[in-house]
């Protein structure tokens, strides 16, 4: 089931080759987090990353985000070698990373202020995004006044506000209840289809990965290597009514993941 990108010939949004990465820890010890990552993501493609916890999914996202310098391998983003963070890659952090001293609205406005979006448009876009993620009425709340799921949605709105061409999302629906999660999934798909953004989506939910994405990248336990890339670019009726091919793919990936988790205990 090794799939190729649907648009292999098209220009790549993100091209990772030969990426190794280790964290330096106290006492000169090194923790190898990523090992020989080769991954090419086409413009407008939706790719999920799936793997046991601690396998380096967040690390990979941080590296592509430009936050963590690496010295082995190469990463090309939209034709240019990766150089630091930038608003072309919007990041949704696993721990939200909202600015706690700013209200929901001020958080969402921050990036647009940096992009010098005119004020009227800024306010209008913020109001719309806050409404779309279901936080209308909480514009003036501080993050400390919100539940985990609400913070996560505020963080998603903040990232979407700068309209990045690439979305790097680290378990962005992890703190949401099942119903809100499915609403947010539909919205993300809608945004992706209508804007042609490239999405790199980290999750530990197999059904979510298969439902949302065109390809699912399976990673091994630490040090994270790419174990297999599964093509999931087919018609899906819905996350829980996906049809035979959907269910078979989910089951196949599940078995791979289970084998990997088992291996980490072996």
């Amino acid at each position, binding site marked *: 089931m090794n799939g190729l990108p649907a648009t292999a010939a098209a220009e790549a949004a993100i091209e990772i080759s030969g990426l190794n990465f280790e964290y330096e820890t106290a006492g000169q010890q090194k923790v190898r987090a990523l090992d020989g990552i080769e991954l090419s993501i086409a413009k407008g493609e939706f790719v999920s990353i799936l793997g046991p916890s601690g396998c380096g999914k967040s690390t990979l996202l941080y590296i592509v*985000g430009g936050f963590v310098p690496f010295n082995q391998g190469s990463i090309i983003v939209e034709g240019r070698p990766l150089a630091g963070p*930038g*608003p072309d890659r919007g990041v949704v952090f696993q721990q939200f990373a909202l*600015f706690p001293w700013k209200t929901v609205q001020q958080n969402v406005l921050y990036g647009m202020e940096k*992009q010098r979006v005119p004020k009227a448009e800024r306010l209008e876009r913020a109001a719309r995004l806050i409404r779309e993620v279901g936080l209308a009425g909480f514009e003036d*709340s501080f993050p400390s006044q919100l539940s985990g799921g609400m913070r996560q949605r505020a963080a998603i709105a903040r990232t979407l506000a700068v309209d990045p061409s690439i979305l790097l999302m680290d378990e962005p629906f992890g703190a949401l209840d099942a119903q809100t999660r499915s609403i947010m999934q539909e919205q993300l798909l809608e945004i992706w289809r209508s804007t042609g953004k490239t999405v790199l989506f980290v999750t530990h939910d197999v059904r979510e990965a298969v439902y949302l994405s065109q390809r699912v990248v399976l990673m091994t336990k630490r040090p994270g290597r790419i174990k297999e890339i599964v093509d999931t670019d087919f018609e899906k009726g819905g996350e829980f009514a996906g049809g035979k091919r959907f269910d078979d793919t989910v089951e196949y990936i599940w078995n791979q993941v289970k084998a990997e988790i088992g291996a980490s205990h072996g």
Partner: protein
Amino acid sequence: MTGLRSFAVSLAPVLVLIAMWEGVARSGLLTPFLLPAFSVVIGRIWEDLLSGSLASAMALTTARALSGFSIAAVLGVSLGIVMAVSGAMRWFFDPIVSVGFPTPKIAFLPIIVLWLGLNDASVVAITALSPFFIIAINSHAGASGVDKQLLWAARSLGSKPGELMREIILPAATPQILTGLQIALPTAMIATLVSEMLTGVGGLGGQLLDAQRYADSPGLFAGVVEIAFVGTVLIRGVAFGRRRLLCWHSEGRAGATA
């Protein structure tokens, strides 16, 4: 109002202490010279109030304490943040701060007087020196402990590295900076009073020194009550400012909504 009631309840132990003081003083166990009655001391404070000497001493001491403390706040916060950002500054100042922090700063008073003379400048200088290191250490800890993902988020939303200081590091470090200021304020007031007493340049500390010199025991006790009053007001003021500044912080609110 619950606020008023809880204030009254928190005042009760102080009232009990005052009642005990009055009782012991009137019982004749101690001579009025060793322990003047609270009512006598209050009478004395009232006299000072009418003559205007209390207001001028309080104003002088408060002005010295606040100007020294403000200088310490500006310099200490700046140094702490600069140390958090620059490795070179940290390398240079870390050992100095480590030695300066535990040293009793009042030991520098004779040197300061030697340089500046027996005047306001010396009092303000020692008042600034005393809390400086606590403020710097807390600001340093606050600024270097900023969650790096906040900085990453700001960068990926388009802020320049040079904007991070003012827009992210400073607000994120504010709770701990304010904690440092709160801890440091009593240190500043101690330095003001002790240096007033040692240099005899007036103020509440100078008054205390005079009362001691003339064996004026009601004056000594009145001085302590006045100092306790000024100290309480200043510390409450800083705590109030903290709550206002940190309305976003969960600690700053009575109850968070779900």
